[in-house]
């Protein structure tokens, strides 16, 4: 589904990604773990086409999309769930949901979204930024489901959420996976990551330091946590 090869990225003079290669197969949920500043978010931005200073290739379904602008990639089925949740203050909840055009084979109807997220229905006419942090996270996830994204790029969807809401996010991602949606997830919460993901990449200083499966992460949880500084 997604293939990144020899990706390097810079912010001005500073190199944040060095020769990163990774692959996410259709239907997989894969996480990127790593310390702050390891380059996780930059990698997601490169996949989405939002980062200018990069070298390497990004392939989607075998097609080289490296030169495609972000809006074209979105129309190929990339769903963007940004770390700040991307709520528009000048758009109502409904407008936030219907802003992206429906692109994938299985875009959700607004009714289906509101059935699955009754809290959003209650606040449908409010400005999105008036919602609680948890509700805004649900909105960000619901938005890419409504557009019918085939690959969700999620940047720390559990950050700052209560344990109950973290569980809910996990449930949404598991359901998305059941519907065949692929997910690439930046995550610091290892417990959450092993609960929803199939595989994990550990990023360190802009490189992929290790590729791990769930059992490996579980058995090395203490070591990894102290490495991540959590």
């Amino acid at each position, binding site marked *: 589904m997604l293939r990144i090869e020899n990706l390097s990225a810079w912010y001005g003079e500073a190199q944040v990604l060095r020769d990163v290669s990774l692959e996410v197969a259709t239907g997989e949920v894969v996480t990127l773990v790593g310390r702050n500043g390891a380059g996780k978010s930059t990698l997601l931005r490169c996949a*989405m*086409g*939002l980062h200018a200073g990069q070298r390497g290739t990004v392939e989607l379904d075998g097609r080289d999309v490296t030169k495609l*602008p*972000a*809006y074209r990639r*979105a*129309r190929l089925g990339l769903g*963007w769930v*940004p770390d*700040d949740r*991307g709520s*528009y*203050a*000048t*758009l109502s909840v409904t*407008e936030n949901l*219907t*802003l*992206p*055009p429906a*692109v994938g084979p299985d875009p959700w109807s607004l009714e289906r979204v509101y059935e699955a997220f009754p809290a959003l229905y209650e606040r449908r006419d409010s400005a999105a930024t008036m919602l609680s942090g948890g509700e805004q996270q649900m909105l960000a996830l619901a*938005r890419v489901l409504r*557009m019918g994204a085939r690959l969700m790029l999620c940047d720390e969807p559990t950050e700052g959420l209560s344990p109950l809401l973290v569980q809910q996010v996990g449930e949404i991602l598991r359901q998305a996976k059941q519907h065949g949606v692929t997910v690439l997830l930046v995550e610091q919460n290892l417990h959450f990551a092993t609960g929803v993901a199939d595989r994990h990449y550990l990023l360190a200083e802009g490189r992929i330091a290790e590729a791990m499966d769930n059992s490996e992460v579980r058995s090395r949880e203490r070591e990894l946590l102290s490495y991540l500084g959590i």
Partner: protein
Amino acid sequence: MSGFLQHTFNGLVGGAFYALLALGLAVIFGMLRVVNFAHGAFYMLGAFGAYVLLTEVGVPFWGALVIVPVVLGLFGMALERAFIHRLTRLDPLYNFLLTFGLTLILQDLVKSRYGVQSSPYATPAGLQGSVDFGLFTFPTYRVFVLGFAILACLGVWWLLTHTRIGMVVRAATERPELTRAFGINVGRWVTPVFGFGIALAGAAGVLAAPMRAVNPLMGTDLIIVVFAVVVIGGLGSIFGSVAAGFGIGLLQAWGEAYLSETAPILAQTLVFIVMAVVLLWRPAGLFGREESPA
């Protein structure tokens, strides 16, 4: 009392011009992140367009009110395609140089053909005379200008809040990069939005022709106040620019009426004092938001 109402009404009419111009600047800045210093020149072109259509072609005011904004809007779109869109990747200094340079070119082109003296434009048929409101009377034409500006602002507001294009413009104004990540080709809407902003300035110019002296420099004085209006309202804030436009119009009219004898300097600088205070108190303007990173 009737004197106060008279001043208030005049302030609203003056504010109507500020609102129309600031509204165009706001939508343009929102979508392009370009401050169009040439906006006053397009206002001037609007007034001259009406004047030329009447004196050289015989097209009356009503025809001009339709033709001039359309033609100027198309001209604006051509300029955006040829020059303005190149600014987005450049240092803001180039934004100033280009749009200010455009102002000088447009002004001098008009000056070389029509000179610097003011040309008269008769009040259009059907809008002469005045309306009696009981306590006071107002010139019919000014009532029309105020009504037109209010309808135009409401129309833009409706477009922005009730259409898909409006939703896209709001989203792209608030967070251009994020909006692209949601599959929207923001660039496609940039040119028409620029043209629309210019068309509004052109319409304001046509409206100004029968009220104010038509001359090549008429935009210069106005645009300085309009920029103060935009800063007070919040750069890029649609509602803020309209509210501040009418607010500043009122403030100027009241200042002139009640302060010009006791404190003439204060009356003239009132707008800029308000701007300075607003900037100190709310740097993003009354209705503006701090720029978000993405």
